[in-house]
C-alpha cells in the first residue's frame, strides 16, 4: 500500500482525504441455536480538505473454510491492514478515481493475504475478512462524493427480486389447501432437508401453482440443503415440471446446489436433464444453481471453458469484496449464466446494506438472498437519518447491583457447568434471512454511502476484540500503567474461561510432570512414581473436603474465625420481628451496622451504614416491607473498607489485590465513551479479564448521573469517573496488586486464618480494610469470606501492580507436599507427546491442530492411530505449547475428545508442523493432498503464472 500518500502534516488537496483513525473490532452474531458466527467491523475516520470528518464502516464475514479465512489468523491479518490504513491519504475526486483507489488497495491486500497465509498454497486467503475492509473504503469514498454506495458502484436498477424471509418448508402446504397462499408474493422460497421431504414437494408446488390465480408467473427458489442424490434431484425436476406444466405464465424455478458433491459435471448433467424434460414447455425454466464452485471471476471463467452453467451464486465474502463480486457477475452475465446474489447469513445491517446496494449495481442479478439477522437480538447498528438513541438500554429495569460484597457474584463458584462430556451432538446452525425494509429504503432515500453506522452502546458492550490506530494512550491508575502479559496470546485460544482450568496444568508440565486431562476442568499430574495429584477447576489437593464444607457457609466461617480471634465483622442472625434483640446486639458491637435478610438475593432489603438505634428501627421497617421481609435477618458490623483478595498458600501470603468498581480517569480531551473504550481495549489484553469487560448498562448510567455526567461528557484531567458500584472483577471491576505495601499485621491475620480452618493450605481471603498499609488495630477491618477454591487468574493477572506467579507457587507447594519429583526450575521449552482419545475422526482435527500450532510457533506432527485415537508431538516454548495441549480437550467444533495424556519426550528433530499419514487412512490422505495440488495449479494458471 505504498501508492497513497502517507503524510500527516501537509495540507490536503481538494478531492483528497486522510484517514485519521482506523479501528477494527469483532463481535459474535447471536444465534438461537448452535455456535455463533464472528463478524469483523472496520471503522475509518477521515478528514477531507475542507476539514469535514467522515466516519465509514464495513462488515466482514469470515466463515472459516467457506470464505478462505482458515488460511491463518484472520484477525491478525485484519489488524495489520487496518494499522496500515491509518494516516493514509487517498485521492478520490470522482467515482472512477475512488473505485480505482479501492481496487488498488484490494490488490495489495490480496498479495499481503497470500503472504500471511500460514497454510501454504491457500488459494483464496482471508476473503471474508477483506470484504469488511473494502466496504469501509467504499463507504468512505461514497460519503465523500455524496453518492450512495450503489451509485459509486454504478447503479443499474432500482430493485431486485428477493428470496422471501420465511421459507415454506416442503410438505407444509397440502394439496388442495390453498387458502393460506392467497397473499403470497411472486417469489417463493422452499427449503427442505433430505429425500423424505422431497416426496412432499410436488403437492406443495401444485398448491403454489394453483394459488397463483393466473395473474403472473412465479419465481421459485428451492433449497434442498445439498442433501439429494442424482436420482432424487432428477425426480425433483420431474416434480417441478409436473407441477408447472401447461401453465399460462412464465415461471422460473431455481434449484440451489442439490448435491453434497461439488462436481460441476453433476450440475451440468442435471441442467441438461431439466432442459431436455422442458424442451417443449416454454412456460417453465429450471435453473440449477452452482454454489461454492466459483468464488470469483477467474474461477468462473475456468469452469465456463469446459461447458455452461445454469446459474451461479455470487457471495461477496467469497469473491473478496463488492468489486470482485461485480467482476464475477460480469463473467456470468457475458456467458448468459443467471446470478443469485447471496449473503453469508448472520450479518448485521452493515453487511446487508452493502449487499443490497451491490445488488442494484451488479451487471446481472436474477435473485438476491440478503438479510440482517443480528439486530433482531443485538442493537449493533443505527440507520442513518433515524433518531440516535443513547438511552436504548437492554438492561433498563434490572435492579442495580448491591454494594454488599457478600451478594456479589462469586466467580470461583462458576465451576458447576460441565459442557464437555461425550455423547453430545451439536445442531448445525441454519442461516436464515430477514428482509429489512429500512435497508431497502436507504438507497432510495439517497443517504450517502452505506447509510448504516455502529451504535456506541454496542461498541462498548458487544465487542470481543478491538484495535484502534493511532493507539490511544493507556489508561492509568494512580500513576501505574496496565500490566502487559506476554502469555495472553497463548491463553486466548482457550476461550473465555479456558485459562482457569489450564494454568495449573501449564505449571505441572513446566515442572516435568505427565498430565492426563478428562475435561476443561479436570486433570491429573504425575511424576510416574507417587500417587498423582488431581485438580478440578480451582479445587486442588491443598484443601480438605472439610475446609470447603466450612467455607461455603458464611455464618459458620464467621463463628469459626471468631473462635480463633481472627478479625471478622461481628454479626448474628435474628428471628423475624425480633428487633429488640437486634437493638441490644447492635448496641454491643457498636454502630454503624448493616441489616439484611438471612437468605438474601440481589441486595433486596439490604440497608448499609446504619448509624444509630433510630436508623436501625427504620431499616427494620423498610426490610419488613420488602418481599423478603418475612424472613430471619442478619445484623452485622458495617466496615467502611475497601475490598481485598489475599491469597495464601501453605503458611505464606503469595498475592494480594485490591478490587474496585469500574472507573475511567479523565484527560480533558476524550469523552467518557472513548475513555471506556480505551480502558476496555487494555482490559482485553489481560489474560484473566479480557472476556469480562465492563458494560455500559443501567448501573453505569446511574453512576454517571450521580456524578452529573453523561457518556458524552469530557471529564477534566485526573478526574476519576466511576462506572459501576460492584467490586466484582467479572462485572468490570479493577484489580490492583498491593502485596508489597501490605502491613505485616494484615498478613499475620491471614496466616492465622490458615490455622483456624482444618486442612486448609490454599485460600483466598476476602478482607475488608480501610487502608492496607496501616496496622489492623488502627482501622476498621474484617474478613468477610474465605474461598477454598479461589480463582488463580485474578491474583496472577492484576490489571495494575506487580503480578505474582500464583499457579506456579501452588504447583510447587502441591509437589512438595505430596513428595513428587519435579524439576528444580520450570522449563522454558518443552517437547511433549500427546495421545488424544474420543470422537475425533472426520472432524478436521489434524488441520485444526496444525493451524493452531503454526499460529503459536509450535513445531511437531500429528497422526491418527485409529478412528478414536490421535497422536501428536508438540515442541516449542512452554506457554505456547501447553496452551495448545489444554485446548486439545475441546478440539475443533465438532470434535468430542474424552481425554488426553501429555508426556515429556526428548526433543525430536522436527521442522514446521506436519500432518503424518496414518496407517489405515493413508490412501485417503493422499487423495486429499492430490486435490490440494490440483487447486494450487489451477490458481497459478488463472493468475497467469
Amino acid at each position: 500500500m505504498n501508492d497513497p500518500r502517507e503524510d500527516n502534516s501537509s495540507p490536503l488537496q481538494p478531492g483528497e482525504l486522510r484517514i485519521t483513525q482506523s479501528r477494527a473490532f469483532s463481535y459474535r452474531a447471536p444465534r438461537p441455536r448452535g455456535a455463533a458466527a464472528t463478524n469483523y467491523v472496520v471503522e475509518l475516520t477521515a478528514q477531507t480538505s475542507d476539514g469535514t470528518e467522515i466516519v465509514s464502516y464495513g462488515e466482514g464475514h469470515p466463515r472459516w473454510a467457506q470464505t478462505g479465512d482458515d488460511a491463518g489468523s484472520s484477525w491478525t491479518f485484519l489488524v495489520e491492514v487496518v494499522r496500515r490504513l491509518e494516516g493514509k491519504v487517498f485521492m478520490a475526486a470522482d467515482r472512477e478515481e475512488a473505485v480505482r483507489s479501492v481496487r488498488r488497495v484490494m490488490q495489495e491486500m490480496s498479495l499481503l493475504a497470500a503472504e500471511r497465509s500460514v497454510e501454504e498454497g491457500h488459494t483464496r486467503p482471508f476473503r471474508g475478512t477483506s470484504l469488511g475492509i473494502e466496504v469501509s473504503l467504499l463507504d468512505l469514498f461514497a460519503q465523500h462524493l455524496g453518492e450512495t454506495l450503489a451509485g459509486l458502484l454504478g447503479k443499474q436498477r432500482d430493485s431486485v427480486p428477493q428470496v422471501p424471509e420465511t421459507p415454506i418448508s416442503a410438505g407444509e402446504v397440502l394439496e388442495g389447501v390453498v387458502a393460506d397462499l392467497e397473499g403470497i408474493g411472486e417469489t417463493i422460497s422452499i427449503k427442505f432437508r433430505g429425500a423424505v421431504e422431497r416426496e412432499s414437494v410436488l403437492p406443495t408446488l401444485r398448491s403454489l401453482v394453483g394459488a397463483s390465480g393466473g395473474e403472473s408467473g412465479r419465481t421459485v427458489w428451492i433449497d434442498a440443503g445439498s442433501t439429494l442424490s442424482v436420482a432424487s434431484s432428477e425426480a425433483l425436476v420431474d416434480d417441478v415440471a409436473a407441477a408447472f406444466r401447461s401453465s399460462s405464465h412464465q415461471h422460473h424455478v431455481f434449484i440451489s446446489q442439490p448435491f453434497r458433491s461439488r462436481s460441476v459435471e453433476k450440475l451440468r448433467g442435471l441442467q441438461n436433464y431439466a432442459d431436455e424434460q422442458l424442451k417443449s414447455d416454454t412456460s417453465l425454466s429450471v435453473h440449477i444453481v452452482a454454489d461454492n464452485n466459483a468464488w470469483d471471476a477467474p474461477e468462473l471463467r475456468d469452469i465456463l471453458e469446459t461447458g455452461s452453467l445454469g446459474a451461479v451464486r455470487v457471495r461477496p465474502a467469497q469473491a473478496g469484496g463488492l468489486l470482485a463480486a461485480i467482476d464475477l457477475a460480469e463473467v456470468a452475465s457475458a456467458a448468459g449464466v443467471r446470478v443469485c446474489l447471496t449473503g453469508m447469513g448472520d450479518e448485521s445491517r452493515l453487511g446487508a446494506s452493502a449487499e443490497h446496494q451491490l445488488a442494484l449495481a451488479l451487471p446481472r442479478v436474477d435473485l438476491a438472498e440478503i438479510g440482517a439477522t443480528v439486530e433482531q437480538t443485538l442493537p449493533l447498528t443505527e440507520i442513518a437519518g433515524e433518531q440516535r438513541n443513547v438511552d436504548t438500554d437492554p438492561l433498563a429495569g434490572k435492579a442495580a447491583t448491591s454494594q454488599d460484597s457478600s451478594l456479589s457474584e462469586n466467580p470461583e463458584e462458576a465451576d458447576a457447568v460441565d459442557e464437555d462430556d461425550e455423547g453430545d451432538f451439536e445442531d448445525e446452525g441454519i442461516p436464515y434471512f430477514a428482509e429489512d425494509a429500512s435497508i431497502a429504503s436507504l438507497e432510495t432515500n439517497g443517504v450517502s454511502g452505506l447509510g448504516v453506522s455502529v451504535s456506541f452502546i454496542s461498541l462498548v458492550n458487544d465487542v470481543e476484540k478491538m484495535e484502534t490506530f493511532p493507539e490511544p494512550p493507556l489508561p492509568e491508575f494512580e500513576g501505574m500503567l496496565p500490566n502487559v502479559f506476554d502469555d495472553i496470546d497463548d491463553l486466548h485460544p482457550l476461550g473465555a474461561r479456558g485459562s482457569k482450568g489450564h494454568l495449573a496444568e501449564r505449571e505441572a508440565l513446566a515442572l516435568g510432570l505427565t498430565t492426563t486431562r478428562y475435561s476443561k476442568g479436570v486433570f491429573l499430574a504425575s511424576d510416574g512414581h507417587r500417587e498423582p495429584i488431581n485438580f478440578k477447576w480451582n479445587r486442588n489437593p491443598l484443601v480438605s473436603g472439610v475446609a470447603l464444607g466450612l467455607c461455603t457457609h458464611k455464618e459458620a466461617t464467621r463463628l469459626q474465625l471468631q473462635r480463633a480471634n481472627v478479625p471478622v465483622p461481628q454479626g448474628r442472625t435474628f428471628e423475624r420481628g425480633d428487633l429488640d434483640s437486634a437493638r441490644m446486639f447492635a448496641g454491643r458491637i457498636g454502630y454503624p451496622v448493616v441489616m439484611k435478610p438471612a437468605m438474601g438475593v440481589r441486595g433486596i432489603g439490604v440497608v448499609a451504614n446504619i448509624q444509630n438505634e433510630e436508623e436501625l428501627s427504620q431499616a427494620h421497617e423498610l426490610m419488613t416491607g420488602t418481599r423478603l421481609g418475612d424472613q430471619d435477618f442478619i445484623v452485622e458490623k458495617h466496615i467502611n473498607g475497601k475490598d481485598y483478595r489475599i491469597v495464601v498458600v501453605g503458611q505464606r501470603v503469595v498475592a494480594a489485590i485490591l478490587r474496585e468498581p469500574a472507573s475511567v480517569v479523565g484527560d480533558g480531551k476524550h469523552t467518557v465513551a472513548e475513555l471506556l473504550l480505551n480502558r476496555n481495549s487494555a482490559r482485553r489484553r489481560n489474560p484473566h479479564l479480557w472476556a469480562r469487560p465492563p458494560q455500559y448498562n443501567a448501573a453505569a448510567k446511574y453512576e454517571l448521573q450521580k456524578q452529573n455526567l453523561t457518556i458524552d461528557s469530557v471529564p477534566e484531567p485526573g478526574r476519576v469517573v466511576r462506572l459501576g458500584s460492584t467490586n466484582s472483577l467479572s462485572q468490570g471491576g479493577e484489580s490492583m496488586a498491593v502485596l508489597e505495601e501490605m502491613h505485616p499485621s494484615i498478613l499475620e491475620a491471614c496466616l492465622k486464618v490458615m490455622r483456624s480452618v482444618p486442612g486448609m493450605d490454599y485460600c483466598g481471603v476476602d478482607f475488608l480494610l480501610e487502608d492496607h498499609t496501616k496496622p489492623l488495630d488502627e482501622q476498621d477491618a474484617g474478613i468477610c469470606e474465605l474461598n477454598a477454591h479461589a480463582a488463580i487468574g485474578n491474583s496472577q493477572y492484576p490489571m495494575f501492580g506487580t503480578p505474582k506467579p500464583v499457579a506456579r507457587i501452588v504447583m510447587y507447594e502441591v509437589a512438595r507436599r505430596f513428595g513428587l519429583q519435579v524439576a528444580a526450575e520450570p522449563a522454558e521449552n518443552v517437547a511433549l507427546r500427546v495421545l488424544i482419545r474420543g470422537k475425533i475422526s472426520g472432524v478436521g482435527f489434524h488441520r485444526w491442530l496444525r493451524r493452531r500450532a503454526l499460529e503459536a510457533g509450535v513445531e511437531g506432527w500429528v497422526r491418527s492411530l485409529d478412528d478414536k485415537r490421535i497422536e501428536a508431538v508438540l515442541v516449542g516454548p512452554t506457554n505456547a505449547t501447553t496452551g495448545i495441549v489444554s485446548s486439545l480437550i475441546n478440539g475443533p467444533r465438532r470434535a468430542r475428545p474424552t481425554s488426553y495424556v501429555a508426556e515429556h519426550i526428548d526433543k525430536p528433530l522436527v521442522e514446521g508442523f506436519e500432518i503424518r499419514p496414518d496407517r489405515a487412512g493413508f490412501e485417503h490422505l493422499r487423495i486429499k493432498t492430490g486435490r490440494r495440488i490440483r487447486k494450487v495449479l489451477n490458481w497459478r494458471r488463472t493468475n497467469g503464472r
Partner: protein
Amino acid sequence: MDADGTLEDPPIHSFLRDGFEVHAAALERDLAVTVLPRQVLLVGSGNPVLGDASFVHGVPQSSTVAGVTFAQDKRVRRALLEKQGFSVPRGATFSIGKSARQAVEFAERIGFPVVVKPTMGDNTIGVIPSVSDAEQMREAIEYLHTPLDIREDFTRASYAMTELREPGLRDGVPVAPSSYRFLVEREVSGQYVRVLVVDGTVRSALYCPSGPWKPESGFQDITEVIDPSIASTAVKAAKVIPGLALAAVDMIVPNFRENTPSKDTVVVELSERPWLEAQWKLDPSLAAQLACQILSFELRGVPLGPTRSKITVQVRFDGAVAPAAFRDAYERQAARLDLKTELEVSDPALGHITGQVTGPPRLIAWLTETALDDGVEGHKAMVGEFHPL
C-alpha cells in the same frame, strides 16, 4: 438401650448418618467435639480451635477437596477406573436437553436393563436402577427434569459443586437446566457387594442382594467371608482417585466367596462417603464400630478412651437465632430423651447458651445433629461445643 442391649436411636436421615455416627463415637470415647453447620465436626482438644481431627459428613479431613470432587463426578471416576484396568459397566453420559434421544438409542444399543444416574453429585443418590425398555428410559429422563432440590431422595454434600446454571423452563414450570447430565450404564447381573476401605484396609464388606437401595432384601455382613481377591480389587479401586482417605466401593461379582479376577469384578460406584446407613440397617452396632475406626484413623495416635454409655459434658451453643426459645426447646427434647440438662442463656445479645448435659452420648449427639441441621422445634443454633467433664 433397649432390653437386648442393642442401640435404639431416634430416627435420623440417612444423609446425616455418617456424620452422626462419627460424632457419637467421639462423645462415647470422652472426646471434646465442636459441631458446625453442614455436619462439620471438630474432635479432640489438642488444639483449642481445630481440635485434633475433623470430619464432614463423616468424611475425614485427609480426604482432599480434589479427591471428594473427583468421586462426585461419575464420568471422571469411570474414566480413571477404566484407565487403571478396572471393569466398569458399558456406559456414556448425555444431557437431558440436547442428547436425550441419543441416550435412548445408546441404551437400546448396549441392551436393557440399564441404570440411569446423575453424572454429578452424591453417589448412590438419584440412581434409577433396572430401566428395562425405551419407554422406561424416557420416563427416567423425564424424571431427571425434576429440579434437584425437590427430588425426593436428593442430597447435596457440603463440598459438592455448586449449581449455578439457570433452571430450565418448560411450559412455564421450572425444570433442571437442559445441560444437566446423566450417565447411562448397562445393568450388570451378579452379586452386589459394598466394601468400605479406610486407609488402604477393608473395614467392612456387605452383600446387598437387590442393591444398596433395597435393605429389605436382607443385607449380609460378609467381611470375614469375602474372597481376598475381591477385597484386594476394592482396596486398589479405592486408590484410583487421588486424595481419598476413605471410600465405599460398590462392585458386582459372580460369587463373593470365590476367587474372582479383577476383570470380572465390575465397579459400579466409588463414593467418598462411608454411607454407614447400609451397615446400620443390618446392625446398628456395626455402624458404630466402623465409625469408631474412621475416627481413630483420622486421630492418628491420639488414644481413645474406653466406650462410655453415659457422660456429662459442658455445653456451649453459639449463634442461636432466638436464644431463649432454643434453650427451652432443647431442654424439652432432652427431657423426652431422658437427658439431664442445666442450660442458661449466658449472653442474649450474642446468642450464647451455656450449661451441662448428662446422658447417653449417642442421644446427646443425636440432639445436637438435629439442632444444627433442622433445628429443635424449628429453633437453630450455629455452633455447639461439648467438653467432657
